[in-house]
């Protein structure tokens, strides 16, 4: 157990690990199959620049515990925004109320989950002085404005979360984690002849703010790269024409367009939907659900990535999980409850937004492995279609498989050449059907910059996506032209 976590979550509340063990013993009786106690504290700050001044800064602390008791498919859950013996007793009593009281069962000997550290336990909030945080906002504002006179508004936001978690469970799990997470975003408005368009860019991950002033692989400090990218996108959109409407080939850029995989595949492979038979992918293990060549992975073990976790929120070490291998469905993403009910092993995907939310199977970093084509080759193969390198976000109906995602930067491809920018349009498809239509896979796998937020049942968690350039033979493009 990480001594800093123990100090932060237990000692400060005059509690010891033995109190949690006693709590588990109290929960684990009668027909209860499993119970866990989750302690969390999180510190959050954000700074916002607008109109070339730092307008606001905010800070918050949340501390609390959540107690869950499971009997069969039934879950009792209660939480308190206070870490104390009293809160533990009250929430435990409420959570185990779903089952009749009975004989005490033996709680497993607590064993610390062993997992490789994927990020340093540095506190991003205190690693920089306030003046440094202000400086980076101002520097980006100046940089964006001097790039082009058509830039009329610049908004920059900088935020960080620093989280300590501790989970103990009746199966003997004892796990702790210290999770830093930072994010920097630049959004600009470009104006020309009465027309206005936005562009935005940003990034982040599990490290301190230093990441933003360090140079990227092109030798440019990242904060300036974000400002330039936001400006570039806004200026492209100033020139965009109506998007076409109808079914056509679509080429998706590398990196963030991996939101395709998140919507078309990822959610449908979460264990809960498959246990309940409500996913379009239910019962299809071993079947060809995507074109040959498609290998899709959910990987929580990538160093410093936004979606990575040393251990998930149930104390399971995160893993490299192959979901689809050469087009064949080979695995689901599981939390403990759904894994047990399906006779499978947990995969390190049990995540929760906070102590006040129940864990469920969630994605971490979801991406597709690269293929053999260059992006130029892929674009050259399209007679009439669109190329979309940037997206706003997406949504899926996991039961019918219908999914949408909205391009924020797109171009027309005519006779194998990118000809002109078009307005952001929504693309719609059916997950399994669209994945069968993947006909070319690029050799340029890239992960996103670290900006993804995934929502499910009202819970938000940070995630990552990635993919190489991909060609889908036919998707419906929602333009007006």
């Amino acid at each position, binding site marked *: 157990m990480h001594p800093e976590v123990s100090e932060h979550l237990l000692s400060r509340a005059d509690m010891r690990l033995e109190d949690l063990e006693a709590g588990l013993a109290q929960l684990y009786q009668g027909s209860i199959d499993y119970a866990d106690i989750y302690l969390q504290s999180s510190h959050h700050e954000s700074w916002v620049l607008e*109109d070339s*001044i730092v*307008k*606001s*800064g*905010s*800070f*918050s*602390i*949340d501390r*609390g515990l959540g107690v869950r008791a499971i009997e*069969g*498919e039934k*879950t*009792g*859950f*209660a939480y308190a*925004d*206070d870490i104390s013996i009293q809160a533990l007793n009250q*929430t435990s009593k*409420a959570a185990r*109320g779903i089952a009749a009281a009975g004989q005490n069962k033996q709680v497993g000997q607590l064993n610390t989950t062993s997992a490789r550290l994927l990020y340093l336990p540095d506190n991003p909030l205190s690693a920089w002085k*306030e*003046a440094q945080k202000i400086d980076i906002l101002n520097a980006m504002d100046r940089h964006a404005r001097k790039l082009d006179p058509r830039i009329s*508004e610049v*908004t920059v936001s900088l935020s960080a979360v620093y989280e300590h978690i501790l989970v103990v469970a009746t199966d003997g799990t004892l796990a702790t984690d210290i999770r830093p997470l930072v994010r920097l975003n630049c959004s600009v*408005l470009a104006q020309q002849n009465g027309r*206005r*368009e*936005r562009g935005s860019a940003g990034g982040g991950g599990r490290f301190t703010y230093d990441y933003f002033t360090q140079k990227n692989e092109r030798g440019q400090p990242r904060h300036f790269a974000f400002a330039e990218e936001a400006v570039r996108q806004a200026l492209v959109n100033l020139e965009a024409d109506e998007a076409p*409407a*109808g*079914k056509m080939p679509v080429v998706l850029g590398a990196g963030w367009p991996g939101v395709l995989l998140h919507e078309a595949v990822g959610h449908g492979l979460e264990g809960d939907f498959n246990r*309940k*038979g*409500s996913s*379009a992918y239910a019962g299809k293990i071993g079947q060809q659900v995507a074109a040959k060549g498609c290998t899709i992975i959910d990987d929580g073990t990538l160093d410093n990535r936004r979606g990575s976790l040393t251990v998930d929120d149930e104390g399971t070490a995160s893993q490299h999980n192959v979901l689809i291998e050469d087009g064949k469905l080979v695995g689901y993403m599981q939390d403990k409850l759904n894994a047990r009910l399906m006779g499978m092993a947990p995969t390190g995907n049990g995540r929760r937004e906070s102590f*006040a939310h*129940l864990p469920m199977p969630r994605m971490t970093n979801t991406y597709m492995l690269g293929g053999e084509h260059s992006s130029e080759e892929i674009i050259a193969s399209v007679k009439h279609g669109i190329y979309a390198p940037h997206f*706003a*976000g997406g*949504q899926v*109906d996991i*039961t*019918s498989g*219908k*999914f*949408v*995602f*909205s391009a924020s930067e797109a171009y027309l491809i005519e006779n194998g050449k990118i000809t002109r920018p078009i307005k*952001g*349009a*929504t693309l*719609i498809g*059916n997950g399994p059907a669209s994945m069968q239509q993947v006909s070319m896979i690029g050799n340029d796998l890239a992960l996103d910059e670290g900006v993804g937020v995934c929502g499910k049942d009202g819970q938000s968690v940070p995630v990552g996506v990635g993919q190489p350039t991909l060609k889908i033979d036919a998707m*419906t*493009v*929602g*333009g*007006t032209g």
Partner: protein
Amino acid sequence: MSGQQSEQQQLLEQDMHKAKQAVEEAIAFAKSLGASAAECALSQSRGLSVDSRLGEVETVEFNQDGSLGITVYRGQSKGAAATADLNPDAVRAAVTKANDIARYTSQDPAAGLADAQLMAYDYPDLGLYFDANMDPQHAIDITKACEQAALDKDPRIINSDGANYSAHAGFRVYGNSHGFTGAYMSSRQSLSCVLIGKQGDVMERDYAYTLARDPSQLKRPEEVAAEAIEATVSRLGARSIDTCKVPVIFHRDVAHGLFGHLVAAISGGSLYRKSSFLLDSLHTQVLPSWLNIHEDPHIVGGLASSPFDHEGVRTQARDIVTAGELNTYLLTSYAARKLDMQTTGHAGGIHNWRVSHGDDDLAALCRRMGTGLLLTEVMGQGVNIVTGDYSRGAAGFWVENGELQYPVSEITIAGNLTQMLRSIVAIGNDIDPRHGIQTGSILLEQLSVAGN
């Protein structure tokens, strides 16, 4: 509500009284640190949420949420902090942190509290609180009854994603250094049911829900079940259609979303950032000339009622749109200063919009449309408030000669909101009471539909 107060209400009132003290202490402490002004909000909510699926309880969740947020002004600079821990030490730590942050943020001429004379010093009791039934057994019974009624009726319903009952009650306190402190309690409960139907190899899901502050206004579980069955079964056999331009009806379940985009476009934050397709639209025609939108924040028991906004500003009834003309923007005091105007009491959002309508019910609206699309679902984020460009996924029904022909899915709809709002042909009388924007189904002249 009558006569005797329930234990639930008494406990909440006691907590609300303590919360008011905490808010006033936080403001006083901020002043003692040298703040020139401060404001503080504290909300708490308690309740439960229960899911049953396939006849068994799935989750019983007890909710208890609360947070205090403090904003401290040092001259024209501000800092904010929040804490879920309401112990005096934690609150003082949050105030201190907000005060520290205000040392680093810039002087912003538009920053500050709303003007003192606008505070709702004498605010009405809007009757937003009703005792909610928070007995887990009641919740289990009602969810099981709802789902059971849905599972037995139609062989095409092959699975369920369960029924949910949730009941929450709480309060909101707001105070600032003008000496204003206001507080009110509110409650709401809901019952919903999600079903899965199958035809051939294709599954579809849909749901129905009922939501009210007054528990006696909730629909019966059997009614919710019947609506969920109807919604789910009617989607089976959906197909795409050819790309076309046709008239479109936004069913009442999704119609409020269109006016939601209007809200975003005339909100102060979008306007002063020049990020709205309705810049400089005040006192101009934004909707057809027969259309009015009235806002009444003081409807007793109303879902979006509130006696004061998030800055303590007295809310008041307003005609937002008269004869299609925009009468007012929706402003906070900050946006108002940026635009050289007066706040309209919209910090925190709108309050009970009522959109005017004709005499057509949905069937009559379909007849009026003749041939086109009835949309029951829109998907995705493809709405650009800066430009008004609109492109979203959709599902619904193909309509010919006013009659529903077959369900449609995997299509997109696209247009520009400036034109879409102006080209509203008619609004039905089938008003959705479950939303802060109360509107019936909306018939639009034409949208681009992309399909096969």
